[in-house]
Structure formats: C-alpha cells, structure tokens
C-alpha cells in the first residue's frame, strides 16, 4: 500500500499518518516532516516558493517508493510534497513508512528523503523578508553525499 501526492494545499500530517496506522501488523511507523524554517543561511525568510516538473515529479517519487519496497519489507509508504508558496512553520514534505521492523521503517524513510532532496524535480526559491530580491536555493553537497550512500555497485558509473 503506497501513495504519492503532490499538492498546492497545506499538508495535514495527522490525517496522512492516520492513513497508515490502520495497517495490519505494522509494528513500526516512522514519519518525517520537512518544515519551512524561519531562517535560511542565517537571515529571516518570508516564504519559500516550490516549483516542480509535473508528471516527472510524481513518476520519480513513485519509482523510488518502488525501489524502497524492494529493499525493505514495507507494509505502507506515503509521500506528500507541497508546491507553491509555503510560509515558515508549514510542512513542505511528509514521508511515512510502516513495517514490522523499526530498522526497515527508519531506513526507508531516510532513503526516500535523501532521494527526494537530490533526484525529485523540485526547486526552492526564497522570498526574503524586507523585500530584497528572491533567490533560488543552491543544491547542497551534503545532500548528494547522503543520497550516494544508498547507491548500489551497479549504479557506480551513474
């Protein structure tokens, strides 16, 4: 049981987690919420604007959900990514994984987040408080390093 959703509307993390909690025999449920911070690089922000590639974003996330399901014994996965204007304190992305085993639920949630950060076609723009020019967020090397740890030998050339 898995669901991937991209939406401009605020994410109701309670309802999303509840959708997985009825699962037969899931002993472990891990959730991750990525939340819009009040500061970015040390200065306050008014909002983030999330752009995405419709069609490819869903497909790319679904592909990684399937990959996670082949790697770990998962009973349920849910990924919701918000787009558009997002204010500090609001949820940008929500990932939930359910399994009989906590190790699997934790690993799959981390794997999905690492891939979302580096492979899913979304781009963040920062709207600064005080009216200075908007800025596109730069990709972080540490996110690429985090994603690389899941790479299998056959992907090494990639």
């Amino acid at each position, binding site marked *: 049981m898995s669901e991937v959703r991209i939406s401009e509307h605020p994410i109701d993390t309670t309802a999303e987690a509840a959708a997985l909690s009825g699962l037969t025999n899931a002993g472990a449920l891990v959730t991750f919420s990525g939340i819009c911070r009040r500061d970015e690089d040390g200065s306050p922000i008014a909002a983030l604007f999330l752009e995405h590639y419709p069609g490819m974003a869903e497909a790319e996330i679904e592909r990684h959900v399937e990959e996670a399901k082949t790697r770990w014994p998962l009973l349920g996965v849910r990924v919701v990514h918000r787009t558009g204007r997002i204010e500090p304190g609001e949820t940008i992305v929500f990932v939930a994984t359910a399994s009989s085993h906590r190790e699997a639920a934790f690993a799959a949630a981390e794997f999905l987040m690492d891939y979302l950060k580096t492979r*899913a076609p979304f781009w963040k723009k920062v709207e600064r408080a005080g009216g200075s020019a908007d800025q*596109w967020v730069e*990709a972080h090397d540490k996110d690429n390093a985090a994603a690389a740890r899941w790479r299998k030998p056959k992907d090494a050339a990639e």
Partner: protein
Amino acid sequence: MKVLYFAWLRERIGKAEEEVDPPASVVTASDLIEWLRGRGEEYALAFNNPKIVRVAFDRTHVQPGAKIAGAREVAFFPPMTGG
C-alpha cells in the same frame, strides 16, 4: 521536439516551454544545449555553465551525452532542491 525549462533556466530564458526543430547535427543533450546557446543572449545566459544543467528526456533523468533520438519532451533544469 518540445523543450521545457525550470527554475532559473525558465526565468533567464523567459519562457517555460517551446517547440524547437534542431538540425540533424544535434545528436546529444549536450549538442542541444550548444545549439540553444546560439539562439540569443537569454539562452547564452541560462546555459553559461552547461555543466550544472540537468537534463531529462521524456521525464527521465539522463546524462549530457545521452542521445536525443526519439525523445518527445526534453527538459533542462538546475540541480534539484526539493524535500
């Protein structure tokens, strides 16, 4: 062929998508970038550092050397910053 631009590539070029008809000498994604750079200042600015531009053919990530042959939708975008 349909070409899409995202994030600051879209902003610099000034459009989100367009139809293009490159000559037969344009074989790979890199070739297409070079060809687009010659189309005007806005393209030259958008692609001034081709190494950091990512490419997808028909909604799948590809390397710059990948052959375009058969692709109906080519997308160019900066490194991803979602999640």
